[in-house]
């Protein structure tokens, strides 16, 4: 488990694109950790000038690197604060997604029969589920805070990992080392979680990266549609505020940075995922 995880970084580090994206990702991670400490203002703090007037829609300057919003908030500070929710929501969702997906895939693939049919029908149902509409409906009914957002995204996103893992398990379970484990007295549980699971970890890691990318974008979309956690400033909600204020034209510095931040973060995640997948999935490697 840990081994596969460390292996992930060493594999990603090997390629040029992987190296750059790993560095970019690490920077984003440190922003998420340190951002709030480094931010000159609070996320919803209103900034007043010496004369006591609200600094509305001020263009970027030395005092406000990325200008201010309609309500006089410092965009640079908001950007720093916004990294943390984007990454926590993203990582937790990705982790939960993969935990569910891997387990469903392992059980369906190994146990087969009725369990497999049931779990695969369930996966089909979720695969046909319109992603964003479902999450919006769910959030509107359960209330909007980051936990329900994470749960709602997890509820839908496990489907693709489950499918991939199941297909892999179907071939793994016929391998001879499974029979070997059985002859030493391994129970079904042992075989699933101690023999097969380590072999699907690479797929789980690819799943985590793609789920992370999706989750970050989806979280932003949820924020943009106005269903985000009202108490949390995230990159998505900054864009939403800018859009809702109808002041985009007067303050491009307000709209552009959060979008670029999302783009850079997600791009780095995608490239890490691909760098890793190219190595662990030989079919694709052949292509490269």
């Amino acid at each position, binding site marked *: 488990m840990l081994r*596969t995880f460390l292996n992930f970084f060493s594999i990603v580090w090997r390629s040029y694109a992987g190296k750059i994206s790993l560095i970019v990702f690490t920077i984003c991670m440190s922003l998420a950790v340190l951002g709030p400490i480094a931010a000159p203002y609070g996320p919803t703090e209103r900034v007043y000038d010496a004369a006591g007037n609200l600094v509305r829609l001020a263009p970027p300057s030395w005092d406000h690197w990325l200008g201010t919003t309609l309500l006089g908030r410092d965009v640079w500070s908001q950007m720093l604060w916004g990294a943390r929710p984007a990454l926590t929501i993203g990582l937790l969702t990705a982790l939960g997604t993969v935990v569910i997906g891997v387990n469903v895939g392992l059980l369906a693939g190994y146990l087969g029969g009725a369990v497999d049919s049931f779990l695969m029908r369930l996966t089909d149902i979720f695969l046909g589920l319109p992603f964003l509409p479902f999450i919006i409906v769910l959030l509107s009914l359960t209330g909007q805070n980051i936990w329900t957002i994470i749960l709602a995204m997890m509820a839908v996103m496990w489907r693709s990992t489950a499918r991939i893992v199941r297909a892999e398990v179907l071939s793994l379970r016929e*391998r*001879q*080392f499974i*029979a*070997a*484990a*059985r*002859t*030493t*007295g*391994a*129970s079904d549980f*042992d075989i699933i979680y*101690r*023999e097969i699971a*380590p*072999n699907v*970890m690479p797929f789980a890691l690819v799943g985590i990266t793609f789920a992370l990318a999706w989750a970050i974008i989806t979280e932003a979309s949820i924020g943009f549609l106005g269903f985000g956690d009202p108490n949390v400033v995230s990159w998505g909600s900054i864009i939403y505020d800018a859009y809702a204020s109808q002041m985009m034209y007067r303050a491009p510095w307000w709209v552009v940075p959060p979008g670029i931040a999302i783009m850079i973060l997600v791009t780095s995640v995608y490239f890490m995922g691909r760098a890793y997948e190219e190595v662990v999935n030989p079919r694709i490697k052949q292509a490269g």
Partner: protein
Amino acid sequence: MLLDVQDLAKHYVLGEGFSNLFGLSNPQKIRAVDGVSLRLQPGEVLGLVGESGCGKSTLARILVGLELPSSGALLFNGNDIAEDIKSNRKQFHQKVQMVFQDPYGSLNPQHTIEEIVTRPLIYQQLGLSKAELKDRAIDALNDAEMMPAKRYLNKFPHELSGGQRQRVCIARALVLQPELIVADEPISMLDVSIKWSIVRLLKRLVKERNIGLIYITHDLSSVPAICDKLAIMYLGRVVESGLCDDIFKQATHPYTQALLAASPNPNPDVKRGRPNISGAIPNASNIPTGCRFHPRCPNAQPQCATEQPAERHRGYHRAECHFAFDVKIERTKRA
């Protein structure tokens, strides 16, 4: 008696199931193992020899409890183990271990050698501490002549050579201190240079620890070096069995004779041709009537096509042929 197999059979039925409810297909019965009897004492090596597809691996899988027999009895130390496998699987697996043909496929690629060798102890829930586990693993690796064992503990299977991998497989089998080991073609996928050392290793372990070993091969050349007894299989049945020497010197079944004729040199370096008999081995789903060997038998007589031969024996030497131990025929053939 360590192992006593009586009239064991395994029949697979294909094309059964849902579609068959409507009579859409007629199920095919594959008689992979079709009435096999074997006996084995502790410290003895029984060679199981036969062409590809004759049911050797199926028999092996039944013996180690990977599959249940369709019929027949399996006595282990005098107790019927068919029940044991169902109700007390863990304990049964502790006594009987298997070494597989493919030393790469039978090692989990994601596990280190230490994990591979300690896993059996963990699965058996023996309650050993981490240090004890490690000690046992090192002992087992030493026994399998992986020395110095410590150097290999953190390696992965793909970092080892084929022979080293097979030693790890043997160590994994040894770590539970079994009474019986079933080795299914353990050297057929190895480099020529190491085949012999693996054979010698197996032989030494069996003698030192009084373990019973069933040594499966389709290749007679390695047999004299390791086996005490021999059973020749053809299409799911043992057609001739007895002491190794007896069979090599006085094979009486035409199939055995053909196998021996095709392997003049008891040296595994020499690649062996197909047995010197015409035709291919029939399908296990379509076994000939009478003597199952008759379509290919050089000595076949009219009665062979209709009457199933009974077992004949001379001492411990047994054979299933109408004319087994028949001096006249032996003579005419030699002439």
